[in-house]
């Protein structure tokens, strides 16, 4: 035992119950003759303190534990006003959370366009923000540059060496694999399909269903070869997942089978052929059950309407126009007494992004999912028609506005501002406050400024207008700073 260790145990237990060690001769410390054990221990503790502090040695660096230095930057750092504005956004944001995130994204985009990168000093704050907000993470490169990439890399390494037990790591691995699969499906749909086919046998039913769900991204007829056999799976969740995807492929074999089931149920009736007569489907045969139509339950009545829904959702929409001999709008007019069937057609059109039907259906009712099916150029006029019609509830309108591509055109922008400024526009203002500043075109900011000048008791509404003005003016500063 070393002298210091001896000293420590004596001190911990106390001189009352433990002898005090003798000083090491080499230290040249000679206690005076008659001191108490306490003083002898304290004297040596004082000595040990000074010796420890005066004899510090540097630690040795672990070989390989140190990351390579960052490579040289390939773009100059932003300076001056641009750097100042970013610093302001990160440390003293003049706007709310959501706008601040948006402005940081704007900054990153401006910088990327100008061939500049985030000043090194601001990198930690930007990267920390990206961690919590995927929208910022998507814009990190090229604006954070070589240094940002390097920081992310060493951050990963540090978290790997620190991260905990085996179970959390396994769980982490599973989530990583899932995100990786999603990313692959996004960038290379065919490769993702091939990967799933290879891994299929090794997966549990739950995993198969989850992976099928990912195929919804970039779905195409090529995926049918994987989906059709999945209808024979033993587990219901896998079959349902496959059927749900096939609902979105109107040219698939299953859709043709559904068409064959739907056509016999439809008849045009009336002297002027103004109405559809729709029969309920018969009890399903084994092939229909395989396609996802509910078999008769063991007790009670079968859900025949539910079966009809399933057939309408699965069949191509052409079946309707073929039998009516008219265009979608006129066909829908023949279904005005069948709201439930229209609902099913509605779902089918939205799932397949069928623009022709979406156009016709939108005239019946405004719905955010359908609006997204239209080409971008048609969305705003369609929405404007509904706004001018004046039938939309604020809740529904807000949902629609959220889907329209940004920035809006001036006519839509002004129309919305008129609605907000109207006597009872406060409620709508509340609903759209999150995205209005981002959606309005710069040209509408002037209008907003006027609205803000007006006296208004509704503090919530004033805040919405003020956000718009602040966002636009900050964005203007960004534009100037990056010129």
């Amino acid at each position, binding site marked *: 035992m070393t002298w210091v260790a001896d*000293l*420590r145990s004596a*001190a*911990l*237990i*106390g*001189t*009352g*119950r*433990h002898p005090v060690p003798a000083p090491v001769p080499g230290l040249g410390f000679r206690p005076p003759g008659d001191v*108490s054990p*306490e*003083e002898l*221990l*304290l*004297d*040596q*503790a*004082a*000595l*040990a*303190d*000074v010796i*420890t*502090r*005066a*004899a*510090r*040695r*540097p*630690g*040795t*660096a672990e070989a390989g*534990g*140190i*990351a*390579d*230095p*960052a490579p040289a930057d390939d773009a100059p750092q932003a300076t001056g006003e641009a750097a100042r504005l970013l610093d302001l956004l990160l440390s*003293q944001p*003049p706007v709310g959370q959501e706008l601040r995130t948006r402005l940081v994204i704007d900054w990153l985009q401006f910088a990327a366009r100008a061939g500049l990168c985030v000043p*090194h*000093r601001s*990198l*930690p704050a930007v*990267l*920390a923000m990206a961690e919590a907000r995927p929208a910022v993470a998507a814009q990190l490169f090229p604006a954070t540059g070589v*240094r940002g990439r*390097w*920081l992310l890399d*060493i*951050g990963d*390494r*540090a978290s790997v060496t*620190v991260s905990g037990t085996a179970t959390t790591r396994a769980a982490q691995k599973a989530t990583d694999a899932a995100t990786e699969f999603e990313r692959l499906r996004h960038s290379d749909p065919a490769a993702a399909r091939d990967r799933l086919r290879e891994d299929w046998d090794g997966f549990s039913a739950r995993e198969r269903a989850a992976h099928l769900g990912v195929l919804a991204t970039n779905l195409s007829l090529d995926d049918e070869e994987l989906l059709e056999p999945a209808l024979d799976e033993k587990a219901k969740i896998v079959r349902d997942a496959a059927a749900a995807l096939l609902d979105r492929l109107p040219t698939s074999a299953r859709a043709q089978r559904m068409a064959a089931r739907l056509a016999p149920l439809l008849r045009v009736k009336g002297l002027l052929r103004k109405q559809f007569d729709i029969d309920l489907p018969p009890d399903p045969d084994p092939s229909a059950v395989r396609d996802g139509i509910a078999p008769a339950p063991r007790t009670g009545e079968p859900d025949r309407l539910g079966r009809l829904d399933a057939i309408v959702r699965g069949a191509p929409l052409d079946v309707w126009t073929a039998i009516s001999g008219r265009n979608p709008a006129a066909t829908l007019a023949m279904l005005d007494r069948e709201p439930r069937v229209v609902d099913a057609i509605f779902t089918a059109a939205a799932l397949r992004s069928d623009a022709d039907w979406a156009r016709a259906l939108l005239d019946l009712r405004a719905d955010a999912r359908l609006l997204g099916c239209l080409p971008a150029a048609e969305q705003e006029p369609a929405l404007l028609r509904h706004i001018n019609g004046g039938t939309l509830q604020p809740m529904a309108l807000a949902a629609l506005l959220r889907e329209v591509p940004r920035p809006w055109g001036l006519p839509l922008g002004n129309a919305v501002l008129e609605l907000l400024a109207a006597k009872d526009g406060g409620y709508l203002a509340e609903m759209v406050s999150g995205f209005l500043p981002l959606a309005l075109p710069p040209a509408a900011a002037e209008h907003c400024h006027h609205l803000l000048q007006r006296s208004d008791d509704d503090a919530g509404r004033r805040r919405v207008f003020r956000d718009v003005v602040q966002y636009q003016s900050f964005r203007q500063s960004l534009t100037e700073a990056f010129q």
Partner: protein
Amino acid sequence: MISAAPDPSSLAAARKLARPGPWSETGSNDSLVWGKCQGSGKTPYQVSVDVAAPAYRCSCPSRKFPCKHALALLLMWAREEMADGGAETAAFAAEWASQRADRALTKERRQSEQPADPAAQAKRLADRLSVMDAGIADFARWLTDLVRTGLAAAHNQPYSWWDGVAGRLVDAQLPGLAEQVRSMGSDVHARADWADHLLFRTGRWWAISKAWGKREELTTEELADLRVTLGWPTPSADVQGTEALPGPWLVLGAHRGDDGRLQQQRTWLRGPDGTVVVVLDFAAQGEALATPQLAGAVLDVALARYPGTAPRRAMFIRSITPRGLADNLGEGCSIAAVLETEAAAVALSPWRERHPALFAGVRVCPGTPGSLQDGAGHSLPLLDAPLDSLLALTGGHPVDVFGELEDGRVRPLSVVVNGTVLTP
């Protein structure tokens, strides 16, 4: 200016106010900025700021200090957005400035007129010494009790036990020692190496009590260091007139800390002949600390040093004129050399716990808590360092780092990157 704000909300409020709308009769001269701000009340608030001191005054009832009006006024002044109300100083501002000058004058006069009675002064000193003697004797007894019953028993004591001992030390006019004992009360529970920490610290306290007993044999410097450790400060008035070390002084780095009751600001400076000194500023919670100096700035100012061993505490004795920015901090050393210097400093002044250190060509390495590594393959752990910021600024390349060495770890205060001195 931003660091003068007591909290972020005041600053946000000030930003909103910093537009010409509510202001009238604004103006500024060399040392004063003033203006009237229309608040919620009927009469506008009269706001004056002495930018040289800095000092603030406002007639508003806000308990924040400085209040948003003063901050807003400063903001506008800094942006040169003030509608100039003429060169004539507004009456209320001039009045305030002259009041302040009067007060300073009376204070000074009182101080300079006082030491009239040497006998009374000697008696006060003797009284203080006897109180301290008794306190030290009591403390030494407590230390012997501590090691007789064992440190393990002390580890089980509640915080109030340590606080009680610290309280007795404060009564004995030994606040520096009291502070050490008080923080030990939390350290024994917070630190994994508490047993060694407490053992060595007990030894150091014992040595302090012994040294106080033999204070007649100590040199002036040693006694001065001991006084600092015990918490018996040298009045700044005693230092003021002693010397005037001319500049230019280079700001090596600065640190702002807050122990919950007192804010402290340490500014490390190096003179033309290589002398390193530290300027300490204190302020109570909620008060404004002196204006921080930028690391790498070269200051034209004269300094007077407090007694003690190097690096000594110093105070500015004239107003500061910044002369520009340095592109480096000078010649640094390796980690091994820095530790050797520390060892020499400990031998010279065993009570000092914090040593300035300038490292040359060290790389910042990630980890918990991260470390510095030099070309010789040596490493030194970092102490409450903003690691992300350090890595972002240096990119893992070798740089010069100035920091404070404390308990075998280094607190980095400034780094030199591409010819610029930066604060991480």
